[in-house]
């Protein structure tokens, strides 16, 4: 087992060197069995650092390389490559994490140095057992699945489709457009959301490379990077998509003469009929029937005036059933968005109790020309508000709800302040904790709105209560401590707007399990690296775009969607991807054919060769978890890169004190 090992200890500038005595560690490493040379170097990942490895392999005939530096999740690839360039198999390399797992988490220099020595010793013991391996290459299917049809999903889908890739865009609502379709104007430029969004929605619908499936859920995801098998369920809308022309005649003809049921798109502020089109620019422009309220679907006893109105088009089909479809894609982009904070969770703001309290998204609908009031901002009693309070940070920056800043609320509150003032001439009060306006043109927008005579009061609102306790429809008092004037303010207003924060979807956990990715504690999908891989996930071939990864505004969402599309394109255009060769294999002579391993495998990669009476692992299906290896009673299964010998030696090494 005598090998020629080279050990490199990285200073990482001062990141490692300030806590770990790198010189002492290198000197110690040089004394370990098999170590031919040990060096410390300022930046191992730099070109000269990598060149050092390559040169040493040649000059000192090294056949094993160890680099003690940062996490292998960051630079293992870099050093494997350097090892390969030096002329030996890249899997003769082993990385030791003395930055994230040592220098950055400890303060005692002597103990941190001791730990670095232990970890390097483990690697020195381990590497002689390393075997030469080849990465396996798998082809990438060129089709892409985009989940979520908000602005993020739309932009990602269009970018990919314009590059000539076939895209499946799946949305669970009956129309694409997401939250952006509900907005009136967008900050800081005040362009009309519909004017900039709906052309993109139409392009999605007509693009020859995009298959748009709305009212559709993803139910199952199998496979791995380049080769995902996705099962979706197209929910019945009881209207045949290809036959409906979106004329709305059925809606007009419905036996319900007046809209009677809460309109989901307008957040319940308006009413809709059982058959409806979500909004005038809905894409696809196809009617939907709500089975909960449609008399025909509930009782089977309706005059079916809608069918009559549809006439020869025969688009209405009450017998429609959910349709299951299976697609094969190489990459997936998740753009599932967010939900707004439920303002009822803060009872002292009175949302749901007092008529004059609204969420900001409701105001978006009220000031929107296609909204329930035709763009006229009126209270529930039909009157125009003469004074309005906007409360910032509702469900954000709050220990009791969400600790994080939702990033968009200050800006949209300023926008709403501007719009409310413009439409109603009302006196507007913005109650804020800090005014957060970082972004291109944002601070300028704040100055502009301040200049328009909107009152800015720095203070977190403590209470909203009725001026006259018996009139829940009446004026409200907003109470806050003005922290600039150091006085308690009680401001009477007709309308209170709650600038609700952004939250992860309630089913974010189910969704991420479906796609086998991680979530942060708040429920946002976790990116592979917060800075350097912001749209990648820990599952190769699955990318993130938009607010499902964290709160962000439209420009950032679109930028991220473009980045996710580019990452998918990079994989697709390369045509193949290299996978870690960490798969398991059976040593036939040692296998007793006991079948213990077979139920261990979640991928059904193990079967039994009945002729030879031994287990066989299908390498293409094996994903390299090693669960079968640990279960094999005769030690007949081995996992590449994580063989028993390698791990036992690591254990020995880490504990072998001098």
């Amino acid at each position, binding site marked *: 087992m005598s090998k020629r090992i080279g050990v490199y200890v990285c200073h990482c500038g001062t990141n490692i060197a*300030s*806590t770990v005595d790198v010189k002492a560690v290198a000197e110690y490493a040089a004394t370990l069995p098999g170590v031919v040379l040990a060096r410390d170097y300022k930046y191992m990942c730099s070109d000269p650092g990598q060149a050092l490895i390559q040169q040493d392999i040649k000059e000192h005939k090294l056949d094993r390389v160890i680099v003690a530096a940062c*996490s*292998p*999740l960051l630079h293992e690839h870099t050093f494997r490559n350097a090892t390969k360039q030096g002329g030996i198999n890249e899997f003769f390399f082993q990385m030791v*994490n003395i*930055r*994230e*797992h*040592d220098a*950055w*988490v*400890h*303060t*005692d*220099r*002597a*103990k*941190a140095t*001791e*730990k670095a020595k*232990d*970890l390097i010793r*483990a690697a020195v013991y381990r590497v002689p057992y390393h075997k030469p391996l080849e990465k396996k290459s798998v082809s990438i299917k060129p089709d892409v699945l985009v989940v979520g049809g908000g602005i993020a999903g739309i932009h990602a889908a269009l970018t990919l489709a314009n590059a000539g890739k076939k895209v499946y865009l799946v949305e669970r609502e009956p129309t694409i457009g997401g939250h952006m379709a509900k907005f009136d104007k967008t900050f800081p430029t005040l362009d009309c959301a519909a004017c900039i969004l709906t052309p993109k929605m139409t392009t999605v619908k007509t693009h020859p490379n995009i298959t748009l499936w709305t009212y559709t859920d993803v139910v199952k995801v199998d496979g791995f990077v380049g080769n995902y098998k996705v099962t979706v369920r197209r929910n019945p809308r009881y209207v045949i998509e290809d036959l409906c022309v979106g004329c709305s005649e059925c809606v007009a003809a419905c036996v319900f003469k007046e809209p009677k049921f809460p309109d989901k798109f307008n957040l319940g502020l308006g009413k809709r009929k059982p058959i409806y089109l979500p909004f005038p620019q809905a894409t696809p422009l196809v009617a939907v029937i709500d089975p909960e309220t449609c008399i025909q679907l509930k009782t089977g006893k309706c005059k079916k005036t809608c069918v009559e109105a549809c006439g020869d088009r025969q688009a209405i089909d009450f017998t429609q059933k959910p349709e299951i479809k299976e697609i094969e894609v190489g990459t997936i982009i998740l753009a599932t968005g967010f939900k707004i904070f439920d303002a009822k969770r803060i009872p002292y703001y009175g949302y749901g109790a007092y008529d004059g309290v609204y969420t900001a998204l409701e105001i978006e609908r009220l000031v929107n020309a296609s909204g329930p009031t035709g763009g006229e901002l009126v209270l529930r009693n039909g009157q125009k508000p003469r004074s309005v309070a906007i409360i910032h940070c509702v469900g954000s920056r709050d220990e009791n709800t969400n600790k994080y800043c939702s990033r968009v609320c200050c800006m949209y509150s300023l926008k709403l302040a501007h719009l409310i003032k413009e439409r109603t001439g009302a006196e507007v009060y913005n109650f804020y904790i800090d005014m957060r306006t970082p972004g291109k043109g944002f601070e300028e927008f704040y100055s502009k709105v301040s200049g328009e005579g909107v009152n800015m009061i720095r203070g977190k609102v403590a209470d909203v209560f009725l001026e006259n306790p018996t009139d829940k429809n009446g004026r409200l008092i907003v109470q806050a401590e003005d922290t600039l004037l150091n006085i308690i303010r009680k401001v009477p207003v007709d309308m209170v707007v709650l600038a609700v924060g952004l939250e992860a979807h309630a089913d974010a956990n189910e969704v991420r*399990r479906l796609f*086998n990715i*991680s*979530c*942060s*504690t708040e429920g946002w999908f*976790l990116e592979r690296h*917060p800075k350097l891989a912001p749209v990648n996930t*820990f*599952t190769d071939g699955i990318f993130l775009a938009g607010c499902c990864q964290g709160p962000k505004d439209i420009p950032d969402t679109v930028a991220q969607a473009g980045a996710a599309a580019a990452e998918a394109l990079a994989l697709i255009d390369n045509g193949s991807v290299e996978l870690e060769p*960490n798969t398991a294999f059976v040593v036939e002579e040692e296998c007793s054919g006991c079948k213990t391993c077979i139920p*261990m495998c*979640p*991928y059904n990669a193990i079967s039994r060769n009945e002729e030879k009476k031994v287990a066989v692992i299908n390498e293409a299906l094996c*994903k*390299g*978890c*090693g*669960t079968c*290896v*640990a*279960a094999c009673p005769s030690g007949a299964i081995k*996992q590449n890169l*994580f063989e*028993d010998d390698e*791990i*036992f030696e*690591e*254990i*020995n090494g*880490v*504990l*072998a*004190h001098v």
Partner: protein
Amino acid sequence: MSESTTTAFEPRIVAFFCNWCTYTAADLAGVSRMKYAPNIRVIRLMCSGRLDPQFVMAAFAKGADGVLIGGCHPGDCHYVEGNYKTLRRVTLLKRMLTELGIEPQRFRLEWISASEGDKVQRVVNEMVEQIRALGPLDLPGKHRNWDKEMEELETHVNHSQKEIPAHAH
């Protein structure tokens, strides 16, 4: 940077962390500069399901004072259900270790997701404190003592056997 001057008992803990959740959480703890006790040595596995109970036995046998296993939360395993297999093995193993006189605090399984850097910090600190209170396990030393006892016993048996007449067999 303070230098350690005391030679008090410092527990040695070997940890087996899965690549996707707990190892990443430990990286996150690093990136977030969360400070914790320097007594832990992490060995990376792709999945906690790779954990062969023999790894735990080997770690104790070679002088570890504690062994920590870190995997993804139930339902979150990168490999679907490897962590459930770990849970099964660990439950049995724990029973066996207790029988062998290894206190339960010395062997711990924790579900730590990739976003829970603070949990790595908390669990490691807790475990170090608990084991510090228990004192060294020193299984290698105990093995040496047991070997000695066995030797003595053997000599004793051999000695007394000589006194028994051959026909007694």
